[in-house]
């Protein structure tokens, strides 16, 4: 309870309670006074006062005060209750406790009624409803944790609560803390600020430029000069479609070129991949802790859904609604129904710990779902509140379990989990209606045949035709129920059930249609223009991908510990426009890349204040795609399905399943703990949590990859063979190689350097390779590999 932001009810009691009631909004620790723990989501506490008062009386009205206590009651407490509290409970539940358990104090009468994180520990006169009695009975809660108390002691507690919990102990001195704070910046409504006035009014070309320039002028800084056209073209191409420009011609009109890129089917492949980082997308569970890593043979449908959503410019509010509650939305056609079911895959794709020996399994699955929504969509680390009220953010544990109830009332459909019951129970999958049938792919047949599972898999619990189109996802559970608060995040230590609802810090509210899980209402709450976080968080993610640094530098965390953005007005300006333009992602990107800010020249280092563009390394996928592009090998067609489709296997028991491919990297087999070796060296995320910003650190293992990896070597040879199709003069071939790999002409010095290398390498190889054509290929391939390994290929200005 403590530390929440909800309206709180305070009653200062004095020695005996006087009935003075205060309602106040506060965000810090509640003073240690008599506080019946009522959580009010109501935005207008004053109106509900009478209601609170009556409830208050109900709760504590029967409690016996020191003054009214009989001698027998006092002696009962002193002989039977106090010694047990002191001996069994104070170690963790008193002011002297080294670490206070569950924020519960048992060394003062009022504290026992206030209770800790799980709510009031006793309700006078009602032993069955009192947590302290449930705890000593080992009924849901288990206290003391080491050993159950003997029955007669348990009965003493029942008796004591029944008689009104007479408690002669002195109450703790009151410490009234009042530290009114301004609400968190990210929770204030999104504003629509006007572009500020600037001195250099000639500089801005779009409204967003004025926001950037104004801040620079405040600091007496100047924006740098505009980028050269050719560099800008390369930047735009990599940023929007993740490939180098398809030709070296001059870009005559920037906005035409941007439109061309936005309309390319490669746009969705590039931007869809960014979203897949947020969605912690993968095609297997990852090590469950027992070394088992079952495949997700239908996950790829979610990948394709995301790519398509970006290509079709599905409005972002719709996009997230489909992913959270697509199954609950009406559909006009079987195709649309399929698409919406596939979208809910977001909630089923998580990495789960093994079910075996894990009483928290179900809550672990829910935790992953809450995390992806919290960090991914809201930019709040809601997950911390699973075990304790959030230390810094206004997220009490109750809010966590209000959300958890929504997912507890949701059936998560991850599929067969390779029919390994210790890993996860089998679940059904969504059966698609309009999708075409798919069969397992033949490439993996020999590997899987040669490596039967070590432990025989169980029989499939849900039978589908072998070519049935299926999808992971969620649907409402048969049983709709609120979730009980898990004390310290342990599902064996249960507190009171928490009504299903949303975060109190941003508007709050509870689920109104009690027959549903509440996911649809949650989605609407998230996608509402009134939600202060959703648009801000997404706009910031887009900015980050285009500039290499977010306006908020902690894209997954807009909470108290986030850095306050230097350009909050700009963030709000973009968020407002984003929502006004129907949450169109393409329009948002278009307006940013056509700004003068985006088009500045680059340099290295931090882009603080955005006085220049940031020079950046390409991500793993783009590096591979660029190599394929240089060698002319890239197959630009979207992949159909996945290597692992319709194969329920344990990845950990099989040798590498990755196969050579010339398709774009987004379509490679993304198995947790067994990512494509062509991508792993370049800081690929592990797909277990929301990845906000890829690391671009240079590592020795990357150098080894560029020097020795089979894919790089193979591409070098193909590159050389491609050059052999051009005229035989070495200079012309070298020039061609520069155009293919780096998109520019070689200088005279570079031509000479290439010639020198070819001559010297040939001389070195002559003793070991006497066959001339082969040696020529080796030499040229070595040259081509050098181009593929050069910094210029991997860094974008």
């Amino acid at each position, binding site marked *: 309870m403590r530390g929440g932001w909800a309206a709180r009810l305070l009653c200062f009691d004095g020695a005996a309670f006087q009935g003075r009631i205060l309602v106040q909004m506060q965000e810090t620790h509640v003073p240690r006074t008599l506080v019946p723990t009522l959580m009010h989501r109501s935005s207008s506490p004053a109106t509900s006062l009478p209601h609170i008062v009556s409830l208050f009386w109900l709760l504590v009205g029967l409690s016996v005060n020191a003054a009214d206590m009989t001698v027998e009651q006092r002696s009962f407490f002193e002989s039977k209750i106090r010694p047990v509290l002191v001996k069994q409970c104070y170690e963790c539940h008193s002011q002297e406790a080294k670490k206070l358990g569950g924020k519960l104090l048992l060394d003062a009468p009022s504290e026992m009624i206030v209770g800790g994180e799980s709510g009031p520990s006793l309700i006078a006169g009602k032993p069955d409803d009192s947590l302290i009695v449930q705890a000593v009975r080992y009924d849901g809660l288990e206290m003391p944790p080491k050993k159950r108390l003997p029955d007669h002691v348990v009965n003493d507690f029942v008796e004591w609560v029944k008689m009104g919990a007479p408690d002669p102990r002195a109450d703790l001195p009151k410490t009234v803390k009042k530290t009114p704070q301004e609400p968190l910046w990210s929770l204030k409504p999104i504003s629509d600020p006007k572009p500020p006035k600037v001195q250099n009014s000639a500089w801005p070309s779009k409204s967003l430029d004025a926001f950037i320039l104004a801040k620079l002028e405040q600091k007496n800084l100047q924006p740098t000069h505009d980028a050269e056209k050719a560099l800008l073209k390369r930047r735009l191409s990599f940023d929007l479609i993740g490939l180098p420009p398809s030709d070296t011609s001059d870009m005559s009109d920037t906005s035409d070129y941007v439109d061309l890129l936005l309309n390319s089917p490669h746009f969705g492949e590039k931007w869809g991949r960014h979203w897949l980082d947020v969605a912690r997308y993968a095609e297997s569970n990852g090590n469950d802790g027992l*070394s088992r890593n079952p495949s997700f043979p239908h996950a790829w449908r979610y990948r394709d859904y995301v790519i398509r959503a970006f290509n079709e410019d599905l409005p972002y509010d719709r996009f997230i609604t489909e992913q959270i509650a697509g199954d609950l939305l009406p559909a006009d056609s079987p195709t649309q129904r399929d698409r919406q079911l596939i979208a809910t895959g977001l909630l089923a794709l998580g990495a789960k710990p093994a079910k075996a020996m894990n009483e928290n399994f179900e809550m672990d699955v829910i935790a992953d779902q809450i995390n992806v929504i919290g960090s991914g969509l809201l930019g709040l680390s809601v997950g911390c509140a699973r075990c304790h009220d959030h230390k810094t953010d206004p997220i009490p544990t109750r809010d966590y379990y209000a959300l958890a109830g929504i997912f507890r009332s949701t059936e998560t459909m991850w599929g067969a989990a390779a029919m390994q019951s210790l890993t996860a129970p089998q679940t059904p999958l969504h059966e698609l209606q309009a999708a075409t049938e798919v069969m397992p792919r033949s490439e993996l047949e020999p590997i899987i045949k040669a490596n039967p599972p070590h432990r025989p898999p169980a029989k499939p619990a849900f039978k589908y035709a072998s070519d049935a189109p299926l999808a992971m996802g969620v649907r409402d559970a048969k049983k709709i129920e609120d979730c009980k608060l898990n004390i310290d995040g342990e599902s064996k230590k249960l507190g009171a059930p928490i009504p299903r609802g949303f975060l109190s810090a941003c508007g709050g509210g509870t689920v109104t249609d009690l027959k549903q899980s509440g996911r649809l209402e949650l989605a609407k709450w998230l996608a509402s223009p009134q939600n202060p976080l959703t648009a801000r968080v997404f706009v910031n993610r887009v900015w980050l991908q285009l500039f290499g640094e977010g306006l908020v530098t902690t894209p997954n965390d807009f909470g108290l510990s986030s850095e306050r953005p230097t350009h909050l007005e700009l963030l709000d300006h973009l968020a407002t426009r984003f929502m006004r333009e129907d949450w169109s992602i393409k329009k948002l990107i278009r307006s940013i890349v056509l700004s003068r800010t985006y088009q500045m020249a680059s340099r290295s*280092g931090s882009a603080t204040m955005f006085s220049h563009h940031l*020079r950046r390394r390409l991500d793993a996928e783009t590096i591979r795609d660029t190599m394929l592009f240089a060698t002319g090998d890239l197959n630009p067609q979207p992949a159909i399905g996945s290597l692992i489709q319709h194969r329920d296997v344990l990845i950990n*028991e099989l040798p590498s399943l990755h196969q050579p491919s010339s398709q774009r990297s987004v379509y490679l087999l993304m198995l947790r703990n067994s990512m494509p070796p062509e991508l792993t060296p370049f800081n690929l995320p592990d797909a277990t949590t929301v990845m906000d910003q890829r690391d671009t650190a240079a590592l020795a293992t990357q150098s080894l990859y560029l020097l020795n990896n089979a894919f790089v070597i193979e591409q070098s040879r193909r590159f050389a063979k491609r050059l052999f199709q051009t005229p035989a003069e070495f200079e012309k071939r070298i020039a061609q190689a520069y155009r293919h790999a780096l998109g520019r002409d070689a200088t005279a010095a570079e031509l000479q350097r290439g010639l020198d290398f070819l001559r010297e390498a040939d001389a070195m190889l002559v003793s070991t390779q006497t066959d001339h054509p082969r040696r020529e290929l080796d030499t040229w391939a070595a040259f081509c590999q*050098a181009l593929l390994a050069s*910094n210029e290929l991997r860094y974008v200005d």
Partner: protein
Amino acid sequence: MNALSRRQMLHTASCGFGYLAMTGLAGASLTAKPPRLRARAQRVIFLNMAGGPAQLDTFDYKPQVGKKPHAGSIAEFKRRGESGLWVSELLPNIARHADKLCVLNAMTADTSIHAQSMLQLHTGDRLRPCPSMGSWVAYGLGTENMNLPGFISFNTAKPAEYSAAQLPSVFGGTPIGVNGEDMSKATISNIFSDHLPMRVKRRQLDLVQAMNHDHLSLRADDAQLEGVIQTMELGFRMQAAAPALLDLSQESKATLERYRVGKNFAAGTCKASDFGRQCLLARRFCEAGVRFIEITHGSWDQHTDHRRDLTANCATTDAPIAALLDDLDERGLLDDTLVVWGGEFGRPGLTPGADKDQTGHQHRAFTFWIAGGGVKAGHTHGSTNEDGSTVVEGAVHFRDLHATILHLLGLDHENLAVVSGGRRIRLTGLQGGKVVKEILA
């Protein structure tokens, strides 16, 4: 303002050069400057006993007491060495080293869920990604060998266990062999290729670097690009250094035999981990100056066939560990190397004579041992009750173990920290740990 942020600098650093060497370079964006304490150890070999080793049948002796049979040790125990340390008969070779061990019998963890506890053992946090112990050590101390990474993890299970997380990724562990892979073939990815002779490779790298220098010269003062140029050289040097270390062909037959290289006792949960090879490689990488080396054997998770699998697990690890301790001792390395043995938790005991042959997980009391640099030798710290199910005294939480290991390395766990996303991150977490002073020599 063209000065580099320190984070950037570290980001481009080609290898984990000393943390302290960096502090003079630029700003304080990475908060902590750990005051160096007196270092008793320079490096760590962590013997990761995955799955939860049965402490009551290895080091925490629980004979039957009283009239009623109770859970306890089913293996036979003897007092060993001058110290009289109790070691199970299943570990006759490790028993020879009893006088070198400091046994912690009252270890505790927060959970009995494998994945979470394993993560907590490695990173201090069981739920969220945080830097691995090895990353902290490499970050705090840097590497002694510029041709090798500072943190190597053999036979790994999960990237999260050797991840640099919020630390610069150069401090992440370099994996050699993933769980289940044949360790005799395990190596650093892409460490070798014979598509070109070494001489041509060098000439080729010169060409790459010439291009890189040109590219850099048009982009003045780009430390990031400069870092990449250095990293290319490091990679090239690693090509020579790492395969030489991984190649055991120059080791004598007697040595290979002592370590039981290639000998596997796979049974039930006990996996063929070629643990002997891992131990020998640990010694070789330790000699080469790698700061943190983790080797793994699993699994000790003996839910069924406890006796059979326990015997196999002990037989697989006993001689190799003893050989490692022998060699470290003989080379004087044990003086400043910490050898740490243990898993994510332990197991409840079985009752001798009873038919039951299944054990579960126990995180409230289990065993670790440490040997080497700066810990008391032939010493037992902490004790448990008669059936070994709870701690009686001397509890050591993972956080305390972490604090102690860092302390022995001369690092202050309170201050070895980074700020990321507004959170201050350190190995001992929010709660912080306590250095177990009682075990310091």
